């Protein structure tokens, strides 16, 4: 048990909107007070849990600022500290953590009032934090420590994955490291499976840290739970990755809907997108290859005429199709259907990481992510609907991780894409998203507001901060916290899965101890433990 923290001061004024003002006791040094720290307030009927949002200095008599006393006299200074001169805090109460019936029965409750005058204020201790953020257990995963605190910050993962979530931050702030850690948590504790579209090949097998050091990734740590699929066999082989499946996509697997999402990256005109659907009606399944192989002949001209497709539109379309055709993993024929394989793995409870190897081009990424997701989603939908009508089991909940999310979810296309649909419908069909982005202002506002929980590292752009925080209460206080995060390995988490916003330092990732700590955590998988032991 930790020792009770000492009283620091008392509430002297406040409002339920703006929080309360706390007058510090004489023996509490203002300099020990840090914005972002957690405090508890002993109200008459309830205990409140809040955060310091501002630290200020005050005097009772203006003479003290106009003719300051002899500061060399320690006696006078000591007498004045906390009486004539004093520190005050602005504190935002977020929760009640006991005292009233609701919070005793249901745990911490959102605050609807303010503590009464002269309620005592203390720094929150480990037990308070634990009460609010829970203890590591079968469902709660340790993601880091609240800033300046030793206490573990734990996240209820089954709760988290009930909705789509986002991880944001400018480049180099730690999004990838954070995501990797969350994925580990999810595969241990969330009772869901993951499908990761791994643009830079850093989640499945070794990723690199900034110092060029390589860090272990999911399959190395949990080989029995993770499969690595690749689009670039050669690259994976050269990197020594043990892959489970090489993904190829056949021409006839590409549908017009897969193309419309590529409008922006392929510079297709509206007319060209329209033409795709016409070609599909004309050529059926073969539309892709047949359209791309149409030559300059009279016949083609006649066809275009008949379909009322303009010459320049056709050229625009063909250029687009050829860009795709040049992607080496797009082939005439495929031996095995990638969608089936992914689903087969997911059904077995295996997490699938699809690495893109050298094909980090956004066109390849959007095409593949969209194509696979659309098909997997439709299978999930069918299965879920069947299960709801009593036929068969519902599928294991699935979390799909995508990077560069604004390319899928920007305002112009969010309406039309599968990702927009998933983000909006909150796990109706057992599928949710984990989106990663460095430019959240590029994501459709409505989609942003639908996200359950957001984790944001430092953002340098005002618009990005506004977009991440839009619709959150206490936005201006949080914005100042967000803006003060350090450039690396610090983040703010808020939303559905946490009882209140917290600035925290994500768990260290990359050292031998850190790998070990992931297997040491309370988890139900003996196998995972064995995996790690084999590694060491």
């Amino acid at each position, binding site marked *: 048990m930790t020792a009770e923290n000492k009283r620091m001061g008392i509430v002297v004024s406040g409002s339920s909107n703006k929080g309360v003002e706390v007058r510090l006791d004489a023996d509490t040094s203002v300099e020990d007070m840090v914005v972002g720290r957690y405090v508890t307030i002993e109200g008459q009927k309830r205990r409140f849990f809040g955060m310091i949002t501002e630290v200020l200095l005050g005097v009772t*008599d203006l*003479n003290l600022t106009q003719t300051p006393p002899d500061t060399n006299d320690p006696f*006078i200074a*000591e*007498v004045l500290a906390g*009486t*004539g001169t004093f520190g005050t805090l602005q504190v935002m109460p977020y929760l009640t953590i006991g005292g009233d019936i609701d919070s005793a029965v249901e745990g911490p409750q959102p605050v609807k009032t303010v503590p009464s005058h002269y309620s005592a204020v203390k720094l929150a201790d480990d037990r308070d934090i634990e009460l609010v953020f829970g203890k590591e257990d079968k469902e709660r995963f340790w993601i880091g420590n609240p800033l300046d605190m030793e206490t573990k910050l734990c996240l209820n993962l089954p709760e988290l994955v009930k909705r789509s979530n986002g991880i944001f931050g400018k480049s180099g702030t730690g999004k990838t490291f954070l995501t990797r850690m969350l994925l580990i948590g999810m595969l241990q504790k969330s009772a869901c499976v993951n499908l990761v579209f791994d643009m830079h090949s850093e989640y499945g097998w070794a990723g690199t840290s900034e110092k060029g050091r390589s860090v272990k990734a999911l399959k190395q740590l949990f080989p029995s739970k993770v499969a690595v699929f690749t689009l670039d066999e050669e690259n994976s082989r050269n990197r020594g990755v043990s892959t489970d499946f090489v993904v190829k996509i056949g021409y006839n697997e590409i549908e017009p809907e897969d193309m419309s999402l590529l409008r922006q990256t392929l510079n297709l005109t509206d007319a060209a997108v329209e033409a795709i659907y016409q070609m599909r009606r004309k050529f059926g399944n073969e539309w892709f290859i047949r359209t791309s192989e149409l030559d300059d002949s009279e016949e083609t001209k006649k066809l275009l005429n008949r379909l009322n497709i303009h010459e320049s539109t056709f050229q625009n379309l063909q250029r687009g199709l050829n860009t795709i055709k040049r992607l080496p993993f797009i082939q005439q024929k495929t031996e095995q259907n990638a969608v089936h394989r992914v689903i087969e793995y997911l059904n077995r409870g295996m997490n699938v990481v699809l690495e893109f190897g050298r094909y980090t081009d956004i066109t390849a990424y959007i095409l593949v992510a969209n194509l696979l997701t659309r098909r997997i989603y439709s299978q999930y939908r069918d299965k879920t609907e069947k299960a709801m009508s009593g036929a068969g089991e519902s599928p294991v909940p699935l979390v799909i991780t995508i990077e560069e999310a604004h390319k899928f979810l920007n305002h112009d296309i969010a309406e039309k894409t599968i990702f927009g649909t998933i983000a909006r419908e909150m796990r109706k069909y057992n599928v949710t998203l984990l989106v990663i982005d460095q430019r959240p202002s590029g994501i459709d506002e409505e989609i942003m507001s639908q996200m359950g929980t957001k984790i944001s590292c430092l953002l340098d752009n005002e618009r990005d901060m506004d977009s991440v925080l839009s619709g959150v209460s206490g936005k201006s206080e949080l914005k100042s916290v967000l803006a003060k995060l350090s450039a690396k390995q610090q983040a703010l988490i808020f939303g559905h899965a946490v009882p209140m916003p917290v600035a925290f330092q994500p768990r260290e990732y990359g050292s031998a101890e850190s790998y070990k700590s992931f297997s040491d955590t309370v988890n139900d998988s003996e196998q995972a433990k064995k995996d790690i032991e084999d590694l060491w």
Partner: protein
Amino acid sequence: MDTEEIQRVGEVIRSATSGFTAQCYELDRFPHLGGLVKTKNIGAQIYGIVFNATTGGIDPGRKPLARGKDEVSEEALYKSSPQISKLLKSEFEALVVGYKEDNKVFQYLPPQPAPIHSFVYLCPTQEVIEFSRSFEFLYTLLNSAVTLPHEELIAAVLRNMSLVQEDKHAFLVSAGKHLATILSGDFNRLRTILERIRQ
């Protein structure tokens, strides 16, 4: 001599709710300015703070005259004119700052004044410590009608009381803090007192 004899410093000769005047048993043997004294009431002890000491003729019409021109010392003077100590008296005034009843100390005015002719004692160390656990009496002192500056009197009281405390410095600081709250809008008065009690 028993202990009570040592502590007894006089006898009440004028009494009021807010204060009393006591005559000393020996000429010029006053308790200190700012000292804590007590006197008995029925069932209660009344505490006072010594603030004004005087010695003069018993007969207000006869003023003392200088007599020692040819004497070698003050003792010699009293020896050659033994009658003068009978013609003079020493008195001090005390401001009532609280009382004790059923073993509880109250730092506000008692319901009854001290009876005339009650004996006045100097409070022993333990009792000073007990009384000075609270600083409410400082408020009474600050608002009293006394013939000397309040700052001077309060400083004297605190210096006296600090002598018997285990942690003298901590005592003075916490008294200072209490004054700082009472005088929160008047830093200059506060400073005057603080400068008289710092070591």
